[in-house]
């Protein structure tokens, strides 16, 4: 069987976007921490999936809030792809990108992730610290849950939230990725140099 040509698929996506038929677009970005699946709706990035997350599930989660008309297009998401590339080249921060937190239903978790967007690259915050900033100093555990379930990792930087007791703590994409991101941002010394 002949697979569909990328040209044909891009052309369908472009026509669909022109006609307002796309509920959301997605693209696969190659990065030093593996391939990321980025889903972006009209209001911003809805979901970022790590390589080991089944694509069907990630897309279905996004579709549940954007509508089912999801289309792949590297071209229509060129700006988003460039922002990710620049970030992984150490030249920017993808959190300039618009974010749509509709997948976060619980109000407190949403508030935590909104607060977290103010923590810039190179900075870190503790779970307790972020709880305090979100207005509930005793809710460090709930902050942990909010981070663990963050639908848009990297863009909303839950990797910048560390345990008060030291170490990098846990991460939805695994502690190794968390460390790699923090090293990239200069918030941690590269492993082995300490």
């Amino acid at each position, binding site marked *: 069987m002949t697979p569909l040509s990328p040209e044909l698929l891009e052309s369908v996506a472009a026509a669909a976007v022109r006609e307002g038929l796309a509920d959301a677009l997605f693209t696969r970005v190659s990065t030093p921490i593996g391939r990321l699946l980025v889903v972006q709706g009209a209001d911003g990035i809805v979901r970022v999936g790590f390589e080991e997350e089944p694509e069907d599930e990630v897309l279905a989660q996004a579709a549940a809030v954007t509508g089912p008309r*999801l289309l792949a297009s590297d071209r229509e998401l060129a700006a988003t792809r460039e922002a990710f590339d620049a970030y992984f080249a150490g030249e920017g921060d993808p959190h300039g990108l618009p974010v749509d937190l509709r997948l976060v239903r619980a109000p407190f978790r949403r508030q935590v992730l909104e607060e977290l967007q103010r923590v810039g690259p190179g900075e870190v915050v503790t779970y307790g610290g972020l709880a305090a900033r979100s207005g509930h100093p005793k809710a460090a555990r709930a902050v942990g849950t909010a981070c663990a379930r963050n639908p848009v990792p990297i863009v909303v930087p839950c990797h910048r939230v560390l345990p008060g007791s030291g170490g990098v703590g846990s991460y939805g994409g695994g502690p190794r990725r968390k460390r790699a991101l923090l090293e990239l941002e200069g918030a941690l010394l590269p492993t082995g140099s300490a």
Partner: protein
Amino acid sequence: MEVLPPFWTLVETHGDELLIHARRLAGDQHAEDVLQDALLRALRAYPRLRHADHLRAWLYRVTTTAAIDAHRARRRELPVEEVPAAAAPDAYDDGSFEALIAPLPDSAQVALRLRFVEDLDYEGIARQLGCSPVAARQRVSTAVRTLRERHAA
């Protein structure tokens, strides 16, 4: 109601076979245009689908309709002096078969192609056309009878 899958999942799963279907109906030259049109039609209708059953068959039907409409549009575009009765659309490899069925209505042509080019049984034709197997058999046999009568005349 079962949730509709993300549209692109369907494209990635069935895109190849739909392109083959479009090629059979419209020829190599027009297949990609037909498929693109079909996918856009499908996108327009997608949110209005009331259930998530038979999505593959539905995509085949949409592609079939897009192929028929494209064929009609091309025929309208041809200047009159370029349509001698025996001229087959040049997109088809099998000129003789296409020339034979060219005078028939589009729906009859599609039924004949599904039966004799794609070699589908009536169940298969019914799925593609979105009708019952009985109706599919009827369409093919009516088309064959029309052809016979034309040749007898």
